[in-house]
């Protein structure tokens, strides 16, 4: 700072500096609650999980001091059939759910983006599925998906949706004559797809309102100009609306990715990972390994799996940012 003429500015500058110090202290005081809470329960725990992933800690409350085991947990994770299976499951879940919830949300937002009478009433009804908890929705669909339930009645089928372990691509491999295809290429199981449909049902409205907010920020003259150029209906949707929505698409896809990779509630409540572990997710596996209800708890191993999951999510979202977002800069 300019302190070349202390005589002239000295006292007032000193006052100003002490004011600035007070101001800064007030700022820190105001954000102190977050610094403490976030420092311990978010960042602190993140470092802690990283540390734990290199140990053989068993039960969280174990009296035996955990030992450092290097990369053992990570090596083991990639040869653990359950973990690989859960990754395959969650990958299909991410692809299907993110794709359909984004498309569905865009279409509904476009449908709602109009000046028709009573549109707010429809908007309210359409938003309702995302208001309630995933547990409520899961319990309701538990009933709807029963073998003698309403969904089978409407479809004219008799499928035990949540117990059916056959996979989407099984018929394809059978006709090709491939014996024992790898788990991953068999695609999601019927039970898993039933949970996907339920999840899409609840998340479409969440993302719909984001797209709707973005659509309402598009000034009317944009479409008028397009209309003069002969772009109406689908052409105007394809060439005007979609490109304008691109930043929101990026956001929705990234939020969807973060959400789907951690899916837990629905799988826990509806199927607990079954049938034949075709709905087992990494979060569910980590949960089981930590609590150890079925086996001995292995918190260190669970921590390594949690860290791998976090790493996969970060890598995929970075790739998505690179491919969806740059075009918005144009």
């Amino acid at each position, binding site marked *: 700072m300019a302190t070349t003429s202390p005589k002239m500015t000295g006292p007032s500058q000193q006052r100003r500096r002490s004011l600035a110090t007070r101001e*800064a*202290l*007030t700022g820190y005081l*105001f*954000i102190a*609650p*977050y610094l403490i*809470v*976030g420092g311990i*329960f*978010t*960042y602190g*725990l*993140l470092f*802690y*999980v990283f540390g734990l992933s290199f140990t053989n800690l068993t039960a*969280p409350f174990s009296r035996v001091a955990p030992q450092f085991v290097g990369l053992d947990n990570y090596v083991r994770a990639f040869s653990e059939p359950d973990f690989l299976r859960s990754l395959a499951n969650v990958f299909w879940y991410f692809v299907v759910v993110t794709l359909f919830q984004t498309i569905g949300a865009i279409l*509904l937002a*476009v*449908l*709602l*983006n*109009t000046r*028709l009478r009573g*549109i707010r009433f429809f908007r*309210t*009804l359409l*938003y*309702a*599925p995302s*208001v*309630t*908890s*995933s*547990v*409520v*929705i899961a*319990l*309701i669909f538990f*009933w*709807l998906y029963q073998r*003698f339930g*309403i969904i089978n*009645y409407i479809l004219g089928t008799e499928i035990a949706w949540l117990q059916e372990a056959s996979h989407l691509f099984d018929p394809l491999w059978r006709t090709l004559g491939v014996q024992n295809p790898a788990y991953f290429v068999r695609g999601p199981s019927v039970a898993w797809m039933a949970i996907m449909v339920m999840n899409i049902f609840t998340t479409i409205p969440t*993302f719909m*309102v984001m797209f709707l907010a973005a659509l309402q920020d*598009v000034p*009317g003259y944009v*479409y008028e100009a397009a209309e003069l150029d002969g772009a109406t209906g689908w052409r*105007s*949707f394809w060439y005007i609306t979609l490109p304008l929505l691109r930043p929101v698409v990026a956001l929705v896809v990234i939020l969807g990715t973060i959400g789907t990779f*951690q899916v*837990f509630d629905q799988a*826990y409540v509806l199927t607990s990972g079954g049938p034949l572990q075709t709905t087992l997710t990494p979060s569910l596996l*980590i949960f089981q390994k*930590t609590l150890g209800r079925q086996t001995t708890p292995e*918190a260190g191993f669970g*921590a390594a799996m*949690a860290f791998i999951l976090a790493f996969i*999510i970060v890598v995929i979202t970075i790739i998505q940012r690179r491919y969806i977002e740059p075009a918005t800069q144009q």
Partner: protein
Amino acid sequence: MAVTSKRGTVATPRSTNRQPGGLSLGAIVRYVLLTFFSLLAFSPFILSFLGTFKTPAEITAFPPTILPQNWDVNNWVRVWNFTIPSVQGLLLPRWLFNSTWLALLNVATQLFFCSLAAYAFARIRFPGRDFFYFAIIASLAIQAAVTIIPAYVFYSNIGWINTFWPVIIPRLVVPVGILMLTQFFKSIPKELEEAAYMDGLGRFGTYWRIALPLSRPALLTFAIIAFQGSWNEFLAPLLFLQNPNLMTLPVGMSFFRFQYTNDLTAILVGAMFNAIPILVLFFFFNRYFIESGSYSGLAGQ
């Protein structure tokens, strides 16, 4: 029909293909589609609400009925009176009570601490401000699935398992609220606050007496996000509140589902106990809910 823009401010009547007084074909198609999707979206709630009044035989009848043959409130009474040997007293009222006071407490602390921090980020100059703000944005990516294990280990060591602390203390203040309210405070003019500050009201006084009252809509919108988040939260309470006495409604309902795998009416009543309070709130404050929905994502940008 072309995609119409409907912002109130852009009041250019451009619907050339809409006759005054009549409905265009496009509008009719739109109404039909909207009605169909609204029914689809809302029917699971209606069907299961109606289902709660059916007898156990009727609920699994095939072909299924829509309206119950005899309206039977016994299921509701049965679920309300649900007990287990290891716990004294009724469980459902207790879960309802736990969920309610926890949600209210979470909303209160988050409104205060988030707006306080947001005010500092929007108005006060201090070294490291941008760094801390970035840390808050980055923390959105660190999700529960990653931190549950260390949290469980940590809480076990300090004796927090089966206490309410793990669902109160880490939620005193949440990143999404700070981000959302910071954006809001930045959007309102400073002049009023500056005048008050000059009059010697001090920073806290300015925040409390001037900035907060001006932010009522934003605070209400955030309160909805906070309430919904707390009311619907599942993973953390499932892990940390294992004692049936301490459970919240969603955890209690899942506990219930595993106790009564085949009692579908009871399961549906349980779901309704969880869904109805938030749906009622939603129909009263739907504008704020929907605003919060469009906001919660954008705050993360």
